[in-house]
């Protein structure tokens, strides 16, 4: 078991034939991901990387039974690509694209909510994220596959390279990962920490969760509340940006302290008060998790 993806997931790639789409689709195929289709408007009827290409997502879904869409469409058109995937009824849309206007995401989020109210739940992960991987089964994203190891730690993060760091450290400690989810660094995301923590909490293959947050917004504070009220599994947190100046965007569109809110201190405080173990030193994420799990096992 795992969350979001497993060996039976049937992937379709939107923006399949572009440079980025081609490069990363190849990497996913090499990892063993079951890519069943690609979508590039105007290229329907051709094949690319030995996979059929369709003009529209609905056609790809109908003909191949794809249930997950991985999106590499450029920023100006990415929100529409997510809407197309939603409309076609995929269960999960993973959007890697960086630089989508925030208002576009606000509109997408409304559409997703409206669809959920009508009884069709489409989950979106991203944008501006590395994607999702269930080690040994399915890689849907741009993360380096080889650093991951099948195991029982769930990882959820707002940052790409910090995810790799946490994956690498837990793998080095002999702990593997159940599923690793990059929720992305934008101000409005398809899934937030609470959505993913909820999935990990009910996943029998996950024993503990590493959660990597950063300054800006209040997703970590919401996660703290969720942990206190609804979670039984241990969560280990790291928050990036304690040294970041207020009012400046630290690379990610969402990593900014605005009007004194979204600070490192407030997030660490909320998480600690809720009972989450917060790691101060980035270098010690893996060691902290390993030590805590060992102690728990020996009790």
């Amino acid at each position, binding site marked *: 078991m795992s969350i979001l993806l497993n060996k039976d997931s049937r992937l379709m790639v939107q923006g399949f034939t572009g440079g980025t789409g081609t490069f990363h689709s190849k990497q996913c195929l090499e990892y063993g991901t079951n890519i069943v289709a690609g979508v590039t408007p105007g290229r329907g009827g051709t094949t690319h990387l030995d996979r059929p290409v369709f003009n529209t997502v609905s056609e790809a879904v109908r003909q191949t039974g794809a249930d997950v869409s991985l999106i590499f469409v450029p920023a100006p058109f990415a929100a529409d690509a997510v809407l197309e995937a939603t409309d076609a009824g995929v269960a999960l849309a993973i959007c890697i694209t960086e630089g989508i206007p925030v*208002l576009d995401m606000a509109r997408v989020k409304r559409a997703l909510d409206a669809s959920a109210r009508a009884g069709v739940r489409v989950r979106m992960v991203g944008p501006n994220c590395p994607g999702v991987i269930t080690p040994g089964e399915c890689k849907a994203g741009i993360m380096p596959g080889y650093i991951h190891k099948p195991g029982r730690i769930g990882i959820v993060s707002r940052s790409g390279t910090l995810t790799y760091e946490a994956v690498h450290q837990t793998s080095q400690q002999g702990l593997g990962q159940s599923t690793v989810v990059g929720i992305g660094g934008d101000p409005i995301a398809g899934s937030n920490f609470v959505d993913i923590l909820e999935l990990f909490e009910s996943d029998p293959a996950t024993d503990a969760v590493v959660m990597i947050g950063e300054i800006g917004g209040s997703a970590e504070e919401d996660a703290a509340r969720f942990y206190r009220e609804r979670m039984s599994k241990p969560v280990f947190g790291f928050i990036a940006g304690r040294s970041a100046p207020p009012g400046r965007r630290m690379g990610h569109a969402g990593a900014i302290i605005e009007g004194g809110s979204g600070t490192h201190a407030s997030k660490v405080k909320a998480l600690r008060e809720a009972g989450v173990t917060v790691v101060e030193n*980035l270098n010690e994420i893996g060691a902290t998790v390993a030590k805590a799990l060992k102690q728990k096992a020996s009790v």
Partner: protein
Amino acid sequence: MKLLEYESKELFRAHRIPVPPSGGVITTMAQLPAALKRAGKGPWVIKAQVLAGGRGKAGGIKLARTPAEAREAAKSILGMTLVTHQTQGQGLKVREVLIEGGAKIEREIYLSVVMDRKACGPTIIASAEGGMEIERLAAEKPEAILRQPVDPSTGLPDFAARRLAFQLGLPPQHTAGFCHLVKSLVWLFLEHDCSLVEVNPLVLTPKGLMALDGKVVTDDNALFRHPELAKRKDPELSSLEREAKKADLSYIGLDGSIGCMVNGAGLAMGTMDTIVLAGGRPANFLDVGGAANEERVTKAFQLILKDAKVKAVLVNIFGGIVKCDMIAAGILAALKKVKLRVPLVVRLQGTNVEKGRELLSQAKVNIIPAEDLWDAARKAVEVAR
């Protein structure tokens, strides 16, 4: 991108949101008499155009009743270094001054549209307690703040605008004016891809409502559909930051002595944090990007070394799809083009890390290798002393 007050008010005017009579912006004293004339008869308000709140208290906004007073006020503001509670101890040089006609104020109201991350869309924030900063108001009188979420596709419906007018306790003869104003403000927000449009204060005058101040912040991600904004020189950026932006590098100057080059925004922040934890201070944030190739690494080194405060450089790269040996080769090639005047600590991790480290150790350049991030941070702090 943050717009200056006069730029924000130009947008207001274009959306038919009433603003005070403007005499325009002056950059020299010689332009003052014409500006006063354009603004109509006195009194006038002389306003420093910098990107910071709290200008009034810091002496950046002055009222003038006569041309002589206006001259004195403009003289004191033009060229002054403004330090407000929002400038983090640093001063902002005033190069532009806005000249406006005064307004007879009967009431002050706070009104803004913000991109509300929690609500995942724009939200109107309003309060009958105008003139006060919203952060302070939120802390001291949260019950005085009204919130109205807005549909990002359809804007604000009439009934919601009307309800706000009544909740703010505006006299009934101003309901229509307010509805028009707040709906226009929402359209401005949606049309220009804003993350904030603030009017503080919105004032009630004998002639109606008027935006006495204006602040607009736009979403950088949406610049591709706003060519007029994309062309604009962002006054908030330092010259190094501007240079970095041109090279498509994400760079933010800070006040420490350890230059950082990292791939990924999160890891770049994490690296800065680790330096602080090890007792040092980062000189910058720099995300060199996923493809940390020779060209980008070279440019990144050049930028970091232009900062005279830099006493050591820490390179922290997690090689994923781009393998560590490729990155090491890129660093070595860059070092042939850039003269390194300070010690360099390199931490590589990820795919082909052994090959990468071997390449660096065999090179004829003096590179301090680090095992992990903590080791790297401590070594960088040590050599920067």
